[in-house]
């Protein structure tokens, strides 16, 4: 028992990730934490997407189940779990059964290398970004097999569309990623890195986020990735594989109940995964805003108060809306519930203000905040853009993003090597 406690203690002194330190106990704890956090994030996204989309369209969205529809995702989850799980008679039962699991496995496995902080990752791999791109590209296999195994027309067309789309946009995505990897090699040793933690540390060492590096090259790369990642996750305006006006529900038309909810879970966690790639590569990962311009202990203190204050503000919003609730006796339970939710949020905010917690949580908060901004963008896209036609989709992928990516890659290499190239040219001209 004592040895076990010592084993747990030994990790706390090291400044490595649990995987890097080889500590199985803490690795398991981190895996469970990431899994729980993701599930909560997916549930929150489900509610937020409905509410935000509704408000964009001047509707109220869910209002009945709990105060302001806060319990709607839980009601949905219970409904999905209780629904009958139908396997069509003509379907290929084994493949039909396996397909959702492939998608979910691929969507969750990538979080092994996502760096929530310099030590807050399950593990750090030498091939970090390659691993993320590779494993997330496996999810298309699940989608294709799901569409095929349903043995029905709409799912098959959805699967064909999705495979063509995901393979095409992977190319542009890869080029944008490679241009960032070139940027990481701009140090004295001039060796780059593929490790997710290493990429953020390179941004820290070079003193700027890669989105501002070699302006406007970093920005262009970021835009290519930001477009390609929406297509990779099959979200609007690139949601052709499940275009509901043409294909009913696309590749998961024949799925119901629990298996359908697995697809749902995988879609949202894949969105979070690609958003965290974008945050890590271009937006400085866990680094707080302006780490160079606003330095010193005062600014450190100000920025470390942000997480607590954010939650306190959310609590204040809850209390404000509690006061605005109708005074009818039928709304009494809802009013008490909303006030209770506000109290919980306020308590979380107060806990995050404790100095010992503050220091450990701040990098996780900044990472999560940046990812949350991307999640809002996803909803905003869905509320704004009409769906692409398939030939337009292919045209954007192959004729716009791919050439831009190639030019970007070459330009980044030239600008990064400009002093060496200049020296070579001068040497060549001298007689």
């Amino acid at each position, binding site marked *: 028992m004592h040895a076990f406690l010592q084993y747990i203690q030994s990790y706390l002194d090291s400044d490595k990730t649990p995987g890097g330190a*080889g500590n199985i106990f803490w690795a398991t704890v981190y895996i469970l934490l990431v899994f729980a956090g993701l599930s909560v994030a997916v549930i929150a996204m489900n509610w937020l997407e409905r509410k935000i989309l509704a408000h964009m369209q001047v509707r109220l969205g869910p209002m009945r189940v709990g105060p302001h529809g806060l319990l709607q995702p839980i009601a949905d989850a219970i409904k999905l779990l209780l629904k009958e799980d139908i396997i069509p008679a003509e379907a*290929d039962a084994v*493949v039909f059964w*396996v397909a959702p699991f492939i998608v979910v496995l691929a969507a969750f496995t990538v979080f092994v290398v996502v760096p929530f902080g310099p030590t807050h990752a399950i593990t750090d*791999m*030498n*091939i970090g970004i*390659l*691993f993320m*791109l*590779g*494993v997330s*590209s*496996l999810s*298309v*296999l699940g989608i*294709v*097999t799901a569409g*095929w*195994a349903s043995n029905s027309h709409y799912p*098959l067309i959805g*699967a*064909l569309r999705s*495979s*063509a789309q*995901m*393979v095409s946009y*992977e190319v542009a995505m890869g080029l944008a990623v490679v241009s960032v990897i070139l940027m990481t090699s701009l140090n004295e040793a001039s*060796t*780059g*890195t*593929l490790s997710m933690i290493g990429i953020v540390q390179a941004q820290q060492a070079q003193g700027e986020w890669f989105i501002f590096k070699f302006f406007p090259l970093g920005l262009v790369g970021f835009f290519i990735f930001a477009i390609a990642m929406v297509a990779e996750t099959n979200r609007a305006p690139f949601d052709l594989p499940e275009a509901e006006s043409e294909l009913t529900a696309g590749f998961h038309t024949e799925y119901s109940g629990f298996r359908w909810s697995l697809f749902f879970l995988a879609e949202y966690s894949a969105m979070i995964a690609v958003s965290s790639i974008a945050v890590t590569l271009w937006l400085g990962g866990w680094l707080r805003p302006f780490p160079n311009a606003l330095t010193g202990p005062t600014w450190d203190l100000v920025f470390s108060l942000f997480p607590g204050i954010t939650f306190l503000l959310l609590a204040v919003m809850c209390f404000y809306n509690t006061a605005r609730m109708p005074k009818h006796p039928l709304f009494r339970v809802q009013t008490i519930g909303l006030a209770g939710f506000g109290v919980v949020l306020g308590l979380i905010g107060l806990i995050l203000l404790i100095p010992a917690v503050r220091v450990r949580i701040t990098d996780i908060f900044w990472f999560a905040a940046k990812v949350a901004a991307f999640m809002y963008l996803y909803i905003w896209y869905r509320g704004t853009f009409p769906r692409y036609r398939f030939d337009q989709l292919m045209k954007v992928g192959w004729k716009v993003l791919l050439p831009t990516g190639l030019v970007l890659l070459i330009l980044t290499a030239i600008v990064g090597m400009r002093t060496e190239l200049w020296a070579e040219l001068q040497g060549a001209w001298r007689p």
Partner: protein
Amino acid sequence: MNPPVATPFFFYLLAATMIIGGVLVITRKNAVHSAMALITTLLAQAGLYLMLYAPFVAGVQIILYAGGIMVLFLFVIMLISIERAEKERQFNKQWLVGVIAAAALGGLFIAVYTTTTRGKVLFPEGRMTYGETQNTQAIAALLFDRGAGQYMFAFEIASLLLLVAIIGAVVMAKKRI
């Protein structure tokens, strides 16, 4: 220090997965089932690369084979009518040639594994623990480094070969460009 991943248990697990997957690829009548067995085999192979402390090769294996090529395989298979394909004759009864070829290949493997040239064995015993954390950088140095880079020419020739194949495919598929 981390405990080594390259334990015999994992090797036998991955090798067994590969062999079972490989046998399923050639015995399934349904082409999609074969493709899925092939994906399993390729993923297990990526695991073997990881055991050899070559994470970069493992990552490329997953991206290219499991994520890229197999998706295109499935894409093509879906366009084939499975009902008709299942009724057609699947095996062309050349088991004698097959057995001879397999035996020759197996013999070659055994010969390579057991021969010693100038007192050196091709497969030395013991575990390779070469730079796991710098694997990608080591590969880059072998390919592109000005001093030590020795495989650059071969690498470029291979990419030229692929380019020729791509252009050839486009020319064959599309007469008017």
